[in-house]
């Protein structure tokens, strides 16, 4: 199911960092993995991914290196840094707060509805 874009954009950084927490990846691999893990919910465009990755690299959240993947082509792999892991932890906490708050409101609304 496609999802509202604005909801996704804020949390893309968190999702990307979460993917890199497991292993180093190249851009295409991240999009594939994200799509797979979210049951095709997140269909991230390459045009969104690369500017994001490059600015994360400038901020020191990730680093990159070239690796010869399948003989002919050299791929650019990204790897999460210590600083990146900390940002991920912060983002996760922020997301949890938001998620809990939304749930409270939604459930609260539901309880009110049933009490009438």
């Amino acid at each position, binding site marked *: 199911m496609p999802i509202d874009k604005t909801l996704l954009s804020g949390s893309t950084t968190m999702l990307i960092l979460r993917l890199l927490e497991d292993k180093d990846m*190249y*851009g*295409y691999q991240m999009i*594939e993995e994200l799509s797979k893990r979210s049951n095709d919910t997140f269909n991230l*465009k*390459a*045009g*969104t991914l*690369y*500017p994001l990755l*490059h*600015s994360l690299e*400038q901020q*020191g959240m990730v680093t990159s290196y*070239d690796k010869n993947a399948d003989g002919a*082509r*050299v*791929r*650019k792999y990204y790897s999460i840094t210590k600083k990146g892991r900390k940002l991920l932890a912060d983002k996760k906490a922020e997301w949890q707060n938001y998620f809990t708050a939304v749930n409270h409101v939604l459930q609260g609304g539901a309880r009110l509805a049933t009490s009438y």
Partner: protein
Amino acid sequence: MQRHIKVQQYLETVCSQIRCKKIHADIWEEIENHIIDQKEAYKAQGIDEEAATIKALEQMGDPVIVGTELDRTHRPKPEWSIIALTALLLITGTVIRSFTSLQELNGIELFNKQLFFTLVGVGLMVLFYHMDFTVLGKHPKTVFLLLAVVIVFLIGLSKPTLGRYRYASYLLLLFPTLFAGVVYSMRNRGYTGIIGCGILFAVSFIISMVIPSTSSCVLLTLSSLIVLTTAISKGWFGVKKLYALLLVYLPVIGILAAIFASGILSERIALAINPSIDPHGKGYTGAIIRQLLSGAQFIGQGNVPEYFQGVSSPQILPGINSDLLITYIIHRFGWLVFFITAALLILFIVRTFMLCLKQKSVLAQLVSTAITLTFAIQTIFYISVNLGFQLFAPLSLPLISQSSSYLLINMSLVGILLSVFKTGYFIKDKEDSIKTAVNPFIKFEDGKLIIYVSDGQYRHRSRHD
């Protein structure tokens, strides 16, 4: 494989939005790889080549938006912290000299001259800031030898003052920076590359001995050694690090041992530690400095030893604007002024050193490290002499002490440094396709030293391997 015209157009559109051209190749490769991966995935689903390409491009997103976003990320940014610290150091120097220059006979004249050269220096800094520093990695040997020729030419033209070719000596401070480019260009050149670096270093070393300037000589040796060691520790030469380090440090240790054995150094060290062993000869300045410092206050004018009462400061201390500026300001204004000046310099050096470590490209890292070391070693020499430890003669206190020539050299170095920090992030080290040592003539294998007599022989061998 032929690149599809639409893919070509897509990539061109993306790159045309990005103003920093240095990053184009990098981005082009990454995005093209992505398109190919995406296309292959579609083809695996049974879509034909043409349709898969179109679909893959659609998946990428609008090339203008992608390019604009990337442009925003990769805009070269000036390193404001270094610019601000440079300005602060220049101002501090000018303020201090505006007080000290009044003490000397032609002080005002010298002060105005230095002020004029400060402006010229700022111009030079801006010039080098806008120049592409990667030229140091592209034509390192040419630039290095050109500097050597210019210095030799100056030695030939000028007459020595007090037994030293002064005008030629200032330019020596540029050698470490150019040496960094030489080291960079020796990637994967094996032991031959290290020996090549050694030969060029020897050229600069010999020139500094001819001048003669022991301080510059030590500065060149220390900074070149550190730059070379940094490169070796990164595996830059494509050889075993331990052997490479031995190749560099065994001769160094040998030479040091010879110098120690000659007794010159031990005499110098003894005198530096305790100048009072020869208070009227070689230890004269050192002894006076210590006397003045012992009478210094935290803030305000310090006490002068009795037998100097009535003698003016420049008569007690020769070079209160140039070589002994710090001693004088401690004596005249107190330790606080020294602490502020030293703190600014330390902040400058520590900040540049931290930025050096952040550099991704080896060229950027080696060049910025060489410049930082040139500043750090000048500062250490100068301050230790001014605190009464006269081991090596002071060159200059970067950006502060009186010397128009050193100021111009140091400002040029700041310009190169800013250029590195502005664009260093985008520089990609030239990828050499040959990962193993290129035609080495010396090789270690199974503990055996193998020397190849000719290049041809090696090529012949490797083809059959």
